[in-house]
């Protein structure tokens, strides 16, 4: 597979996943902001501040406290073309990457991206807010998920598809770690746990697995360590590891490149460490450590597979 193509497929997978996750985070919080609980003094601003944090913006930009926090946050996270992780940016990046590898992906997969792109480009912030953003966010999620399903069902599961998988699960793990870092379970155990589960799309799966209302420790344990839930850190890390081994064809449990060594180490940590040990320094410290690991993993993948290749001897 061409290095350039692998690079584009990786970022295609990541950006489609990013659009989906940002859309879900916004939708969950927009809905929750309407609850009585969230309307108490200053809570709304705090909520939107944490949304920014989940989306990857720790402090900046400062949100106004005049009741327009929701609007500003929504504009920044959904429609700001200057924000590289906004929905509109993610969709544009995904579409540009898809266009560059148009010959490698199926017509059905391409069309799902292109339809998403044409739809998002057509939307205006004002009209989306007027009719309530849920419809827009739902469409973004639907088409992002359609791409995932269509690419699985129509593309050969060779190197190209595996690079999409690596991108998709790396982004998913990264965003799950971000969400864990952005919540405040110490102060509002039930509300915050529930909000975290919803942002991870884990509310019903958690309920089925635990048979009780979320407490902070169990909810966190579920999102970090569930073996079967497809957005848990453990599940995503395992998928990255598997896809990378399919690409390199090195036997499981060994590594051919630095990226495989790093992901293998992460996978072992999540497979074999009890939750209380993982969280010994608090959820936030743990989550930030993982965010850093996924960033380093991206760097390792890029330097192994997408460098400007040296002149062969």
């Amino acid at each position, binding site marked *: 597979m061409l290095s350039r193509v692998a690079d584009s497929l990786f970022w295609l997978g990541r950006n489609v996943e990013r659009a989906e996750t940002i859309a879900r985070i916004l939708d969950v919080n927009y809905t929750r902001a309407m609850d009585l609980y969230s309307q108490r003094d200053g809570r709304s601003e705090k909520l939107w501040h944490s949304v920014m944090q989940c989306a990857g913006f720790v402090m900046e930009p400062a949100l106004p406290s005049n009741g327009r926090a929701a609007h500003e946050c929504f504009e920044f996270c959904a429609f700001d073309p200057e924000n590289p992780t906004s929905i509109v940016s993610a969709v544009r990046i995904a579409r540009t990457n898809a266009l560059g590898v*148009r*010959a490698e992906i199926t017509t059905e997969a391409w069309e799902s991206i292109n339809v998403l792109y044409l739809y998002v480009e057509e939307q205006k912030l004002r009209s989306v807010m007027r009719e309530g953003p849920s419809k827009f966010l739902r469409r973004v999620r639907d088409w992002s998920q359609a791409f995932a399903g269509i690419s699985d069902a129509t593309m050969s599961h060779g190197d190209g598809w595996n690079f999409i998988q690596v991108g998709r699960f790396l982004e998913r793990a990264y965003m799950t770690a971000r969400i864990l870092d952005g919540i405040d379970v110490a102060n509002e155990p039930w509300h915050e746990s529930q909000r975290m589960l919803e942002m991870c799309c884990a509310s019903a799966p958690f309920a089925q697995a635990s048979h009780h209302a979320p407490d902070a420790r169990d909810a966190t344990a579920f999102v970090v360590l569930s073996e079967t839930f497809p957005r848990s850190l453990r599940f995503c890390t395992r998928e990255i590891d598997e896809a990378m081994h399919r*690409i390199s064809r090195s036997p499981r449990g060994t590594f051919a490149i630095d990226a495989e060594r790093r992901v293998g180490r992460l996978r072992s940590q999540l497979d074999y460490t009890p939750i209380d040990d993982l969280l010994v320094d608090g959820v936030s410290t743990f989550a930030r450590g993982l965010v850093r690991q996924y960033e380093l993993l991206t760097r390792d993948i890029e330097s192994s597979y997408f460098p400007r290749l040296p002149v062969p001897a």
Partner: protein
Amino acid sequence: MLDLQPQYAVAHHYDELYRPDGAPRPHYEALAKTLGRLGRDEILARVQAVNTALLQRGVTFTVYADSAGTERVFPFDIIPRILTAEEWGRIERGIQQRVRAINSFIYDVYHGERILREKRVPRDLVYSSKNYNREMIDVDVPHDVYIHVSGIDLIRDESGTFMVLEDNCRTPSGISYVLENRDVLKRAFPDLFNDYAVCPVDDYPGRLLDVLRYVAPRGSAQPNVVLLTPGIYNSAYFEHTLLARRMGIELVEGRDLIVVDNVVFLKTTRGPERVDVIYRRIDDDYLDPLYFKADSTLGVTGLMNAYRAGNVTIANAIGTGVGDDKSVYRFVPEMIRFYLDEEPLLDNVPTYDCTDDVQRRHVISHLDALVVKNTNASGGYGMLMGPYASADERAAFKDLIEANPRDFIAQPVIQLSSSPTLVEGVMEGRRVDLRPFALYGRGVDVPAAALTRVALREGSLVVNSSQGGGSKDTWVLQ
């Protein structure tokens, strides 16, 4: 109901559908009947669906003059253009003959120059061609094939006879519209096909791949064929992706290739991988910064050396532009006689040579009746449609011609045939041309996959997509 009566006078040019007496030609009767039965509302609703499908598929082209690469759907007219088996047979034979002669000419100008020595084509004309490439002298290409893919533009004159307007022997485009138009039309208007036996078009990519594999450097049993594109901002990028996908070959950009010891490699995730054949959709000038434009970032450094060493085949070959130079065009009938000892089956449009004093004076004094074309431009850019131009435009061309007579040719205005076309819900006559594609490998293969371009503006004779042209599905009947 769609009004199927001619809305346009057909007396002064040939109409594809109507005879001069207003009756439909026999091979259009069933089509006209089906369109009438569907009715206007149904047809327009389906046209809407067709346009949405084309947009979602990304069947778009980029307009350069527009602000930074705007993507547009290439307008598609749903009323097919029909050619009878007999008409097509004549076209096919005429194109095979013409392409063989031009290929022989290109071989000759780079090997021995027999046609120049015998003064059948002026030496100056060849040497002054912008696309004559000295680097190609005595370079042997596999099977002596230079123009693996060509598109020969045909028009019908007032009597309905097909004539050659232009040869395209470098990187002709348009085949993707042929493939997509057929696919889209079959889905949206299956009823139209009921009464016809239409030759399929979707075997084109396979036939092209056969040619590309055939011309691989000798010794490669499983040649690695790639398609080289300038990238996503090129106006024909959609076509490049479609062909690469249908042929199952890698679509590459210049930065994906590297030349080491005169061998071309792909940069892959598993290291370098050897390339045997490059179907390039990049002009000669941009292929190799060492030999051509030094600032080109689209090409591959060292590619020309690898090519001359015989380690890679480039299709079309480098330097084929000398064969489709608009000034060389008028000698193609002579090439046919010289190399093949045959009479041309397809006529040229009469062409004035502006380097000849007598002819140039005639051209300049008749600018209001002639079409003037820049020999170095294409795509409908840089031309003057004399009868429709303003006095200022004509004066500007007069100066241009006098300054650089080699750069211009002039031709009488040929009326082009008209074809029924949906314009804002009404069927009107619009002018069309025809671009069949020829594939040259073991012999010259002319697949029944031709592009009909249509000038959508009323009265316009310019069909190029960059000038408001659209396209039609073209049916070759069995």
